[in-house]
């Protein structure tokens, strides 16, 4: 029974060491390293369970302590990647804001240019010519002219003359 308990502590220690080594290698890879938090926790838990069992059975602790140290270091490296991700999120938040500001600037410039420009619309239909001129200089006058034109046109129908 004693031998079985020793073997289980030893097996747990071995598993913790293997998980710890893999976690350590994974943790130092940028962006991917954040995933190593989970195996890091598993390593620490395994090492702690193994240590508890080994201290009860008076079996050697070297393997378990080394796996616990590797697990903790790997977990800390992996955890530090959260700060790298935070830096990234800040960076990404900055990008859309810059895009929004640029679009707003372009929109304002286009509206400003349109307000200052003069637009001429000339419509010819059955010999009648309607000319609309827009611009900033006489905007109100042109609006009145447009309203008058609309009033006069109300009597006319858009339908084709009957044969």
């Amino acid at each position, binding site marked *: 029974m004693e031998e079985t308990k020793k073997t289980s502590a*030893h097996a747990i220690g*071995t598993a913790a060491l293997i998980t710890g080594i893999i976690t350590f290698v994974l943790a130092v890879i*940028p*962006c991917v390293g954040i995933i190593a938090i989970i195996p890091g926790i598993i390593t620490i838990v395994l090492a702690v369970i193994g240590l508890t069992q080994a201290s009860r059975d008076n079996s050697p602790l070297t393997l378990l302590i080394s796996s616990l140290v590797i697990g903790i270091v790997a977990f800390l490296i992996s955890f530090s*990647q959260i700060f*790298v991700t935070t830096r990234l999120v800040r*960076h*990404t938040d900055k990008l859309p804001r810059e895009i929004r500001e640029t679009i707003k600037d372009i929109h304002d410039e286009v509206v400003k240019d349109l307000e200052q420009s003069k637009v001429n619309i000339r419509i010819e239909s059955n010999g009648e010519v309607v000319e609309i001129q827009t611009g900033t200089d006489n905007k109100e006058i042109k609006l009145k002219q447009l309203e008058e034109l609309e009033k006069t046109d109300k009597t006319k129908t858009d339908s084709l003359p009957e044969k």
Partner: protein
Amino acid sequence: MSFTEQFLTLFRKETYITVNASLAVIILIIFVYFALFSPAKNNYPFTCIHEELTGEPCLSCGLSHSFSLIIKGRITEAYDWNPNGIRIFLFFLGQLFFRVVFSYYYIVAESIRKQLIIYDITGSCFMFLLSFLPFITYLF
């Protein structure tokens, strides 16, 4: 006792052999994984968070492509995908070699077992630092 029998007995008893064999199997699985996925089809299950968020590649971007291309023997293309890919791949390849060689000498030469473990740990740490130095400097 044959070498295989000796290996199996030590695999059950000696932690060093168990760890070595497990790590060798894991490295082989990694190589098979990268050999299975095609860089042309871009069918890798994991994508980079950095590239997804910012649209800009990070230091580890293209590592999967690079590994697959190295396995297929296209070294120049692998370097183009990620300049660090070759050194990381060499680390894993070196580790596979270390696991096999050190396990062999651990079984054969009983008198120098402790020395072998010390050499292995020192060599592996040095190799790790050398291979992952760009990533470590990027993180800290």
